[in-house]
């Protein structure tokens, strides 16, 4: 090789990651760049924009970090390529929640899109639960969600826990907010409507057109009665509702509870007796990757399972699929609080270094195994998603206008 002809400084290799702020944390990127020796570019988008861009612009990213439930859209668009599990070093350490549908064969696996149902690439090109040597998405971060409530209105939960019925409770009229995303928000509303006895669903994870119509009609009635203050698209909007004291109950995601400022302790994470709404995130390979770029992508996927990223996820309340690897990177106090459900033995910091848990606090719902054993349903892109998402979008849009 002619050394004189080489450029004065070599351009660093770059891996482009498209995803949501659930996993696209600056701290994750910095650690990955330090460990992997190539640059990583994050493109963080809201759920719907992210899945849309991932589908229609597959050349614009190398790695897609999202939730299993939206694979129905992106996979069948042909934007991704199968991941070979024999190139995933820690494949055997990936948890049964992703691989087998639940942490134990005796626990109820939940309605809707359990990740296993979208995990394995079947010979006919579809995604299904039968184990194969290739997968659609490498399972990584996951969690179980509920709603947040104001103790000043609802009091403490008591031994039975709260109920999803609180999310549409008349006492909170005018102070209720829902999350905008249709594969998530519609289920928060449906769980609430079923819990308070207004509606019943034959399979809440795969509603019929009639059931969707009934749910939307109920929400419209409640909207006209002034139940809703609005909807939120990103978690900071949810936190803003609380900090401005505009909501008494709303859809909430785990990291927000560490960002409530003066409302900490007043606004709490519920442990609904009906169970949680679960989600499982992961990382996929763009279809166009080949050769050296594909090797880089596999390096990055493998890095996700080495522990440091999982530790950062834990500090915002999310679990990792191979928790053993994560434990090494957490202090015993952190592990005790986030995974084992122990009372915090000291103040704990979040991913950005601010204190998010105070000494003595205990994680609502308890330990990992307790929480993930109580999954009512998974975030889901139902068969009637096209119909439901359009109806949901109209409803969300109508929340913007003053109630009549």
């Amino acid at each position, binding site marked *: 090789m002619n050394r004189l002809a080489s450029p004065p400084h070599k351009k660093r290799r770059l891996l482009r990651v498209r995803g949501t702020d659930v996993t696209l944390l600056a701290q994750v990127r910095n650690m990955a760049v330090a460990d992997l020796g190539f640059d990583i570019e994050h493109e963080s988008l809201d759920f719907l924009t992210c*899945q*849309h861009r991932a*589908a*229609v612009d597959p050349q614009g990213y190398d790695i897609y970090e999202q939730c299993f439930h939206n694979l*129905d*859209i992106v*996979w*069948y*668009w*042909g934007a991704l390529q199968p991941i070979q599990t024999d190139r995933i070093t820690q494949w055997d350490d990936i948890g049964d929640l992703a691989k087998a549908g639940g942490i134990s064969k005796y626990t109820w696996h939940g309605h809707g899109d359990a990740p296993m149902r979208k995990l394995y690439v079947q010979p*006919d*090109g*579809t995604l299904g639960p039968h184990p194969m040597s290739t997968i659609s998405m490498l399972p990584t971060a996951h969690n179980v969600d509920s709603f947040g409530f104001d103790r000043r209105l609802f009091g403490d939960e008591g031994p039975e826990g709260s109920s999803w019925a609180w999310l549409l409770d008349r006492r909170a009229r005018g102070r209720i907010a829902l999350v905008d995303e*249709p594969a998530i928000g519609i289920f928060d509303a449906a769980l609430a409507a079923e819990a308070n006895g207004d509606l019943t669903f034959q399979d809440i994870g795969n509603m*019929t*057109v009639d059931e969707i119509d009934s749910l939307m009609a109920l929400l419209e009635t409640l909207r006209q009665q002034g139940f809703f203050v609005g909807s939120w698209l990103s978690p900071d909007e949810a936190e803003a509702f609380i900090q401005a004291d505009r909501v008494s109950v709303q859809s909430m995601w785990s990291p927000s509870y560490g960002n409530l400022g003066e409302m900490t302790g007043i606004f709490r994470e519920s442990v609904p007796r009906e169970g949680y709404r679960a989600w499982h995130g992961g990382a996929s390979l763009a279809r166009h990757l080949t050769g050296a770029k594909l090797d880089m992508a596999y390096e990055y996927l493998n890095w996700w399972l080495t522990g440091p990223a999982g530790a950062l996820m834990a500090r915002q309340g999310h679990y990792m699929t191979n928790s053993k690897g994560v434990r090494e990177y957490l202090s015993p106090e952190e592990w005790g609080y986030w995974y084992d459900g122990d009372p915090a033995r000291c103040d704990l910091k979040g991913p950005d270094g601010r204190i998010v848990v105070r000494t003595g606090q205990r994680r609502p719902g308890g330990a990992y195994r307790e929480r993930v054993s109580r999954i009512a349903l998974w975030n889901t*892109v*139902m*068969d*009637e*998603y*096209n*119909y439901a*998402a*359009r109806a949901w979008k*109209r409803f969300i849009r109508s929340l913007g206008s003053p109630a009549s």
Partner: protein
Amino acid sequence: MSPKPTPPGQAPLYETISSVLRHNIRSGRLPDGFVLIEGPIAKLMQTSRAPVQASLRMLNAEGLIHRFRGRGYLVGDGQTNPAPIRRPLEEFGFEIPHISRSALAVRGTWQRVYDKVEAEIASCQIFGEFRVIETELANHLGVSRTVARDVLSRLNERGLIRKGATSHWLAGPLTARTLREKFELRSIMEPAALIQAADHIDHAQIVEISQQIDSGKVKDSAELDDALMRLCFERAPNSALVEIISNNRLLLSAMDKALSDLGLPEDPVAQDQYRILFELIGSRQTDAATAYLKEHLRILSFKSLARLKIVALIPESESRPPYLIPVH
């Protein structure tokens, strides 16, 4: 008051077709024993098959043509027993008189208008439920309400619109349930048509399409599905079955078109399935082909359900025709 003469193009289409056929039979152009089959007649007159069927039934009742043991009708009253003549119509100097030609041309315009409305109504249904306003449709097309009503009743016959409780015309929504039901129908009817058609399929055509798939000339699944319809199912002697199959596919192809317009890539697994299917049909393994067709439809149904979810990403077009009003 004398009755107004019916202007060309306003008479029912099957009347026009019947008079053309009558003309050619009575003038002796088409000899006794000539085999009349809907497809070629429809093609020559640039119409759909349904009016040709109606016209053949009419001529049969008149005794000008008669049924026989094969597919189609034979020219003649059936008293003599001529050998069936299976030749193209053109070889016998088949003639379309001027008056009928202009009637058919007007009909051709009608057909184009109809095709446009059919495409618009089929493709809107992925976005939800719509009311179809007859007066708006007439204004939009620049035709009389009678013609608009004609178009609507044809759409109704083909299962694309229906009357609501308040007597309004309604279209859609195309839901997962509709899709599932349409595929259930496909897997009942299409294998049945394939069995019926087995002895009437032109194997040279099947060999040709197989070669086109192998050489990569035909990749488009919609095109392959269309070939399956044209070269195989349409050969089934039961024309009513063929028509139901064709109508049942309308909404499904509208959805596919909307998705491929978005740039959805081709599915290589589906291409491979069509290749195998045509191979089985080509080698006359009818039982295996039928079983394979059922499996192919099962997978297609599953994938179509997944693809319907992708439709959620398509914003409803701003350029919706004015005669469609969303029902929310």
